[in-house]
């Protein structure tokens, strides 16, 4: 038996990423996901006025600042029992969806599919088609994704002033109403993007695409017409399956979703239990059942993280984030290890779709499991659903022209107390837990989607989701483990998004 350690370092993720893998006879027997940058956001927020979180926390992440803003404002509204009018919920949802569509298009066609252009595949029949479509700055899909992801966030600029990093969601609503000018401008942006998505990405119209409900229907559709097979999603699917991504990268079977997008029909009065447009839940991988989600079941471990140790796991309200950098110990990351019901879980668009009960993704999952291809496919499938939903929202806003966009809170200051804000960001479950004492922030704990997925081992030595998605994998060429790049990117790694972590470590090659 030969044993060796390889280092893998990835670009084209938000932040850089470092993996250490132990191989025995080319089989992965241990994996360590390393977040090596520490920024200390949770400390920066201490002693500041509560609303300052609306300016500081979007800066946690350049690609999902709208989701951070939403989590921050929900936490403040949770503490102050502050109601939000339906129109404000719709505007928030519209902007969250625009940000997610932006992120999904960039992740799919700028970060993920570029790997198909790798020289390893030069002899494969798909190679020329892949380069024509996906090569950075040259491929027709890459250029389209650049252009239309840029246009999509213009919708956020209309309501929030700019993207990235604005603070237009405030306790009680949003700062700008949906004027007819904004609505028509938004529809115009959405129309152009939808046309491109239909022509370039799915090769059919949105309604026909969304009507596909089962694995059989999808695979029949895929090869029924050249326009389907040669669409971006067709190429991505056929190439992924040609190289076997449907057989790898499963990770933990347990999944969580916080539910996405507050239901505007449930708004106007404060309720600690929010209804969502897309359902929340915990998919128990042992039973296959979807159970109600309860935030009290979340804990975070630091046994293998560079934080001052405590035993077992702690709920974020008892959370502690004191850096304790020990590079020469068995601790290896700035990421904590979040657990749900003391289980390792994954989050993201695959989990969201399964928990929401989306029929096509569920059918594909039942057929082949939660593999690397399906995880990426679920992300693009979501784009179609969101484009459809955004149009509905704009029509709902247009139907109520003078609906209030802000209910000014009775109290000028957020009262002392504790609260949380849970949202679904592009990469999955994002939560902020906040405590306010004597009028200032006394504790702020952020658990990002990537913290769930990129988690290190916990107090019981159990690997996190990304780590476990690599265990058992046989690597063809340890000096050029291209299959690992595909698997890791299918998780949509956002290393800045883990608050404590970013950036790379040591020599590593995904390919030479």
């Amino acid at each position: 038996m030969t044993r060796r350690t390889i280092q893998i370092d990835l670009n084209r993720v938000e932040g850089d990423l470092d993996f250490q893998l132990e191989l025995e006879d080319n089989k992965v027997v241990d994996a360590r996901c390393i977040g090596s940058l520490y920024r200390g956001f949770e400390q920066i927020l201490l002693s500041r006025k509560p609303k300052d979180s609306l300016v500081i926390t979007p800066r946690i992440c350049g690609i999902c600042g709208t989701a951070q803003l939403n989590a921050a404002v929900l936490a403040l509204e949770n503490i102050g029992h502050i109601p939000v009018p339906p129109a404000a919920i719709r505007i928030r949802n519209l902007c969250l969806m625009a940000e997610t569509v932006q992120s999904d298009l960039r992740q799919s066609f700028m970060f993920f599919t570029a790997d198909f252009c790798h020289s390893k595949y030069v002899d494969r029949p798909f190679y020329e088609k892949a380069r024509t479509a996906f090569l950075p700055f040259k491929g027709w899909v890459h250029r389209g994704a650049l252009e239309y992801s840029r246009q999509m966030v213009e919708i956020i600029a209309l309501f929030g002033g700019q993207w990235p990093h604005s603070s237009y969601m405030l306790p009680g609503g949003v700062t700008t109403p949906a004027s007819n000018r904004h609505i028509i401008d938004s529809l115009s942006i959405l129309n152009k993007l939808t046309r491109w998505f239909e022509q370039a990405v799915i090769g059919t119209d949105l309604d026909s695409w969304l009507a596909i409900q089962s694995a059989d229907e999808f695979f029949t559709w895929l090869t029924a017409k050249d326009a389907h097979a040669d669409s971006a999603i067709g190429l991505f699917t056929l190439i992924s399956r040609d190289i076997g991504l449907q057989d790898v990268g499963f990770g933990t079977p347990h999944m969580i979703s916080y539910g996405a997008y507050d239901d505007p029909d449930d708004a106007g009065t404060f309720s600690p239990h929010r209804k969502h447009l897309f359902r929340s839940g915990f998919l128990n991988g042992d039973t296959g059942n979807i159970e109600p989600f309860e935030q009290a079941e979340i804990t975070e471990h630091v046994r293998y993280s560079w934080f001052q140790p405590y035993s077992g796991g702690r709920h974020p309200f008892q959370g502690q984030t004191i850096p304790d950098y020990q590079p020469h110990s068995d601790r290896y990351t700035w990421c904590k290890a979040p657990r749900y019901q003391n289980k390792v879980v994954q989050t993201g668009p695959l989990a969201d779709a399964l928990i929401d009960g989306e029929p096509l993704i569920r059918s594909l999952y039942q057929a082949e499991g939660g593999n690397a291809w399906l995880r990426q496919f679920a992300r693009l499938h979501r784009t179609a659903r969101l484009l459809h939903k955004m149009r509905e929202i704009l029509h709902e806003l247009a139907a109520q022209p003078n609906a209030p966009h802000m209910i000014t809170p009775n109290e000028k200051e957020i009262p002392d107390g504790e609260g949380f804000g849970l949202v679904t960001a592009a990469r999955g479950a994002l939560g902020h837990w906040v405590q306010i004492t004597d009028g200032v922030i006394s504790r702020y704990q952020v658990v990002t989607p990537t913290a769930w997925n990129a988690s290190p081992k916990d107090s019981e030595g159990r690997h996190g989701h990304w780590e476990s998605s690599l265990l058992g994998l046989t690597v063809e060429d340890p000096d050029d483990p291209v299959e690992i790049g595909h698997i890791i990117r299918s998780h949509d790694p956002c290393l800045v998004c883990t608050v404590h972590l970013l950036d790379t470590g040591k020599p590593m090659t995904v390919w030479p």
Partner: protein
Amino acid sequence: MTTLLWLQTGSCGGDTMSLLCADSPSLEELVDEYSIEMLWQPSLSIEPTSRLDTLIEAIIADQQALDILCIEGSIITGPNGSGMYDPYRGRSKMSLVRELVEKAEYVVAMGTCSSYGGVHAAPPNPTDCLGLQFDKQSPGGLLPSEWRSRKGLPVINISGCPAHPNAMTKTLAMLASGLPIELDHINRPKAFFNTTVHQGCTRNEYHEYDVEDTEFGDKACMFFNLGCQGPVTMAICNTELWNGRSSKTRAGVPCFGCTSPEFPLTQDLFLTEKIGTIPVHLPLGVERANYMAYKSLAHDAAPDRVLNKTMDH
């Protein structure tokens, strides 16, 4: 051909995301029309990260020309001056940046973090962050204030959190086409930092007649009560709109002064500090007594359509 290397230090990636939003010129145009060769950009390069190692070695050995070095993110010097909160290949990014700047014709700080320290340097500055050539407003950061790049310029600061998309791409286009760049007192190109955020704000008529909002979500000016720093902040947000569409102040969000070295201020960011009824920080260069006189006259002259906030923007 102009070679460009883009490194992220302690960052959220927001300046890269902002760069992708540039439309005049766009990133594609920089590549197609300005012959900028992206040797490395972490979100865009197709090559594996080992390519970056090879590039860095070649640049340091003077075998690869480096025309423009862009740095995105705070320079993290902690813990204990080691820089190892932000490592690269077992060393600190801080030390890597220090080597690379000596090889670049121009060094550009993209965003407030690499310019002045930024949000990560906010108290208690847990990771001991600096800007490249400033520590907040004090001259001297990672590099001393007298430092100059090979072309004789200090670090060019395109501040902003994030930096304005077109301020970044226009600066790169100017450098690539050999246009001169004049800097202000904190080394920002005057082309983008010689106007206030206030200038061009669609709430200006309300400001003009001293009609000031006291609650968010309304239509009037946010300078007197709601923490807006537009009149004291230099940036093009209201003269070259964000994402081609709007700006924070137009959308009812106060300007937080994110292009300034002091960003983010430690006080309540949604409240204006005042002496009596007048903000502590007046529009740049204005005398307090004159301002008070002007404001009371202005309010008296206000037409009903402004006083009653019936004007949209």
